[in-house]
């Protein structure tokens, strides 16, 4: 079945680049691309307000001056979303599993899971950060950390786990019921079935939306700045306010984009690699 892997690769290539057989077609594609972007650039550059906008958004010197500090502050963003994501992946799975527990006795747990996902998908993330970031420390509970970073990450974990739990749930429900039947028939308990058969398959199926949510989380790491810490966006905001020039924002944007692109390609690679393992199959 190695032909399948080959066809898979070929399919993916042609989906992105289109049917590019023949030098003539390639020439046309290239020409049309260049013309398309050239038109956009010309329209922008020849507009009346362009010099002012260029000065306000694309000042080379200010860009290179502000970039190092912003990049350094970006390390905080990375710390925030790496820690948060690790916690989210685990916590959200727990919620999704809770949601699927069967039987009347376990109804409270199912209810809890539903209420949780409804609540934290309903409240805007900003509000959760404010409420937890300023509200929780104000309670002055002993043993509870005061650090804005702690509460910021906690808020992000609570909010994103609600979304990711739904993603997991969709994945779990998409696994063919015969898989569960087969596992239970071998004598595996419900827990063993989830752990060894259902969840591994479910997770593989939802890698694109999982990574999508991760990419969203990376942007939302900037929200932690609301309660004080200086991450990349805040650092650029400080420079913007000091110079009345928006170019530092471009530096922040660039950093986020540079982060997202490899992750998007990683997603593609993971999907392609797991495509081999997807089909459970009836007869062939």
């Amino acid at each position, binding site marked *: 079945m190695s032909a399948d892997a080959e066809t898979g690769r070929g399919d993916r290539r042609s989906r992105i680049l289109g049917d590019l057989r023949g030098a003539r077609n390639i020439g046309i594609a290239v020409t049309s691309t260049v013309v398309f972007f050239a038109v956009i650039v010309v329209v922008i550059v020849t507009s009346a307000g362009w010099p002012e906008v260029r000065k306000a958004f694309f000042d080379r010197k200010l860009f290179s001056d502000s970039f190092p500090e912003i990049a350094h502050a970006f390390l905080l963003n990375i710390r925030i979303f790496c820690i948060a994501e690790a916690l989210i992946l685990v916590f959200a799975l727990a919620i999704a599993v809770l949601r699927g527990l069967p039987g009347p006795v376990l109804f409270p747990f199912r209810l809890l899971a539903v209420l949780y996902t409804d609540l934290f998908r309903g409240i805007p993330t900003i509000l959760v950060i404010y409420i937890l970031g300023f509200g929780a420390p104000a309670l002055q509970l002993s043993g509870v950390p005061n650090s804005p970073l702690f509460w910021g990450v906690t808020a992000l974990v609570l909010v994103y786990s609600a979304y990711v739990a739904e993603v997991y749930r969709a994945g779990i429900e998409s696994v063919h019921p015969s898989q569960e039947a*087969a596992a239970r028939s071998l004598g595996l308990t419900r827990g063993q079935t989830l752990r060894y058969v259902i969840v591994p398959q479910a997770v593989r199926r939802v890698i694109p939306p999982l990574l999508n949510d991760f990419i969203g989380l990376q942007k939302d790491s900037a929200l932690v700045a609301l309660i004080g810490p200086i991450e990349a966006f805040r650092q650029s905001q400080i420079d913007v306010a000091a110079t009345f020039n928006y170019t530092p924002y471009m530096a922040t944007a660039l950093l986020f984009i540079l982060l997202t692109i490899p992750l998007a390609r990683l997603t593609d690679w993971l999907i392609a690699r797991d495509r081999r393992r997807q089909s459970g199959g009836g*007869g062939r």
Partner: protein
Amino acid sequence: MSTSASALKLEGVHKSFGSVEVLRGVDLDVGEHEVVCLIGASGSGKSTLLRCVNLLERINAGRIFLRGEEITRRDVDVNAVRRRIGIVFQAFNLFPHMTVLRNVTLATTRVLGKPRAEAEAEATALLERFGLADKRAEYPDRLSGGQQQRVAIVRALAMQPELMLLDEVTSALDPELVAEVLSVIRELADAGMTMVIATHEMSFARDTANRICFLDAGRILEQGPAEEIFTHPREPRTQQFLERIIAAGRL
């Protein structure tokens, strides 16, 4: 009461899905080492019957006994019962994210608690017996449908069940792959495994079964030795069914 050699006994089993009654009082007694084939039209309740035996479905009325022990009582340990019964479905049996070997050893290690090395050695021997040893490191999607079903049977056998249930295991296969699976089943029958087989493969049923049960509208309408059923069916419905089968060239 149970005879000393009864492997499986169904008494007045009823099963409904919502308002639809699929099994309307099934009585069946399968002796040790007996091979019983269930035949009947789609929707007659064959699959449901098998799923009730291994407790995937909860019956609405009646009782089921496994080697004299009632398995449909309220306080039964379902997982323990299922360990003693092997079942293979029509499709989607194997776990696609595990190799063939891991598929076979998952239950023997996790459920029976065998050490990994021992489980793998036993699994390899079993796979070898059925000519699949060279596939043990492959993932299921690299196997043909017939190979997959054979692995599914091996996987069920690895648990050393007292009873094997086969639910139309060849119905989803390309015709040229059917024979290899049937030969495995035949081998099991020859080795003395007690089996209840739901099938459309009439020639196979005729050759391999000790007894044929014709299921119609949720009841076993007629049962008896293969020769008797196929050559002199008593019930008109049985006759109709067999005529259709013959006309379709499947007998």
